């Protein structure tokens, strides 16, 4: 077989633009890294959902989800989280227009909505525990609190993260770094929204129905 190799020559340089280009590339890399992180997070939640489904009848003769779930509260949570996903989208739109005030404003709205979601969830958990369904009550409740709680934990982390990005936007304005950060947090937020839809369907709806 003939040699098909070509000599090694250097890649074309980017001249004065190089620094800028590389920076741009870095942000692209980070975006891709985040997508892959989301894949791992999907598997993480997938495992939790699988556990929940396996244990969904394992109440050891005790309280079931259908006995205790208060759907109005859960529907309110769902509605709030869906709205927050929408407002985080509006934040990205503001960013793309170069509107820093609008961007920070919409992020603030998203944070408020997220915080109310978490408040409602905590209230729900407290009520459930008062009614006698704690994490140690049965395998079903263990799986319930762990799955819903892990989602809640993700949302809480997202809140801290979003606030820190708002502060950074204040300090640095919209540039390639903050732009990527906003894009990532909004991606993360939509992802949590999708996960919640599964939580809502598999944990609450299927249990109550």
């Amino acid at each position: 077989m003939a040699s098909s190799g070509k000599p090694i020559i250097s890649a074309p340089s980017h001249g004065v633009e190089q620094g800028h280009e590389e920076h741009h590339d870095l942000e692209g890399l980070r975006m891709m890294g985040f997508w892959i992180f989301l894949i791992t997070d999907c598997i993480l939640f997938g495992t939790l959902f699988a556990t929940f489904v396996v244990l969904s009848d394992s109440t050891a003769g005790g309280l079931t989800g259908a006995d205790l779930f208060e759907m109005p509260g859960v529907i309110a949570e769902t509605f709030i989280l869906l709205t927050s996903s929408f407002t985080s989208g509006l934040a990205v739109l503001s960013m793309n227009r170069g509107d820093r005030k609008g961007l920070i404003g919409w992020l603030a709205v998203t944070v408020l909505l997220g915080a109310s979601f978490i408040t409602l969830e905590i209230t729900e958990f407290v009520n459930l525990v008062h009614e006698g369904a704690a994490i140690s009550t049965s395998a079903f409740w263990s799986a319930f609190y762990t799955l819903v709680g892990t989602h809640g934990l993700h949302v809480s982390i997202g809140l801290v993260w979003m606030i820190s990005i708002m502060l950074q936007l204040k300090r640095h304005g919209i540039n390639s770094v903050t732009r990527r950060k906003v894009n990532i947090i909004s991606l993360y937020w939509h992802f949590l929204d999708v996960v919640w839809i599964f939580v809502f369907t598999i944990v609450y709806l299927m249990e109550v129905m």
Partner: protein
Amino acid sequence: MWDKIKDFASEFFVTGDPLIYGADVSIGLTLIAVVAALTYFKKWTWLWKDWLTTVDHKKIGIMYVIASLLMLFRGGVDALLMRTQLAVPNMEFLAPEHYNQIFTTHGVIMILFMAMPLMFGLFNLVIPLQIGARDVAFPFLNSLSFWLFFFGAMLFNVSFVIGGSPDAGWLAYPPLSELSHSPGVGQDFYIWGIQISGIGSLMTGINFIVTILKMRAPGMKLMKMPMFTWSVLSSCLTIILAFPILTITLALLFIDRYLGAHFFTLDMGGNPMMYINLIWMWGHPEVYIVILPAFGIFSEVVATFSKKRLFGYKSMVFALMAISVTSFFTWAHHFFTMGSGANVNAFFAISTMIIAIPTGVKVFNWLFTMYRGKLSFPTPMLWMIGFIPCFVVGGMTGVLLSVAPADFQFHNSYFLIAHFHQVLIGGVAFGYFAGLYYWWPKVFGFKLNEKIGKWAFWFWNIGFYVCFMPQYVLGLMGMTRRVSSYGWDKGWYELNLTSTIGGFLMGIGFLFQVWQILHSIKFMERDTTGDPWDGRTLEWSIPSPAPMYNFATLPRADDKDAWWEEKQRIAQGHAPKPQPKIEPIHMPKNSGIPFIMSACFFVAGFGFVFDWLWMAIPGLIGVVACMLAHSFNYKTDYYIPVDEIKRTEAAARRVI
């Protein structure tokens, strides 16, 4: 007050065993010696600036390798302790409870704290150089991965002297690992040690996928990547799909133990079988995660030392990918005897056998790489050649084990033990040794002594067969794994003694390797060519050790064996291509955050192990604070000026 302290100390520290007191003393003395040496030679700043805060993939790789060799030592000592206990019937060297701790830590350390970090070390040392990149995609994250592994491993190892080691087996099946049956803190050390380093592994997986997909030299299309790069890609894809399952499984076990939940308990609807399914859904892919890069290493080594192109490149790539996909569909072969029914067992039996097909093809391709080549046999190639018969036989016994109804007779016996040691030592360990010997001159600028290396090779190789071949027979004689002693009536004596001798032969092999490294550091000549093996891929085109920016100008790779082709071209009388103009190089700055953040993780983990919230909560707060500090830091990079690059290149004796 004094009594209280005494009570606490006797619970907190592991007491009552002269072996452990001995270890305490030696650990203490080593620590004092290290601290004293660092202070005396005024090396603290050097340690912090050059190593602890580094984001350079090459230095991180070296730290991985050192840590994993230390862990190999500990895991190896565990192994020899076990072999000593089993050498003769009714031995009373280790009590059952100690024996149980030792086989548990041996398994965990060898897989998670030896094989994994040695693998990550090789990823770090080689991948960026091999694909013509200046660093990994996320250098900061890379450093964080290392420190998470390091502190996770330390947390696990601390259990040896504080609180007590885990003793429920390397996969900690519940309910044995639940609070009801393992009330001590050993199991919590297990959970947190693995959890913390597992997060690091997951991040390394992400990091190298992005690095390989996005940072290859111009011209290097996917189907022109060196085979090691392919194997790392397939291994990392397997990591990101498998490790989240481990994270959750351990988290659930922790929630069971800490919050009294009932995922895997015997009562209140808990389901221990679910744990066994989950842990093997990670555990089976895990063994392929560690073997795939070894396949990649062998592919590089065999081509270099046959002076010939790797045979069947496309088949090799396809085989790697096929193995990593199939590895997710075989987990239930670890418990054929659970009574899942004939159809389930048949499915998993066949999916397991299917893996033998691409693996077999790889062996043929390696053989035909050597066919019509010019073979030379320096140490890396010796390990490669030692690997083939060992792995082929180990693979064969693997196929025997996969035959579900026959597995009812092999399961849990020494036959199984012999099988997986044969593929893990003969495949993974031999592979990583080959890689270490092969890339050592690239990393340190000098080769390892060949003569001592050959002694090490033969001790390992012969020791291996003497140790594990008898164990196949012992399995057929009904000796079950994890038994800590046996009677004279069983007739297991001769073979066990032989096996112990083999174990010690491998131990001697390891000592030869340590001697080899020390001897070579002192006596070996510097390699000035940067290409001591007449290599084929880009890492050999730059000086050894590589300058911190790796490539002064980014190379082009238009062929699978880019550097080999370039050398051929020059040999045919073509002039080397003029190098393009050197430009300032963009580099990441060092950061102390990964080290501090991982230390905070350690503190948090330690706090959770002992249920000390006053310690755990500040630890977690520290972790969050570190993340925020990193997020707010926008001055993370700098440029190396052209002058400095020119000086460095000149010093490396490369004409520009």
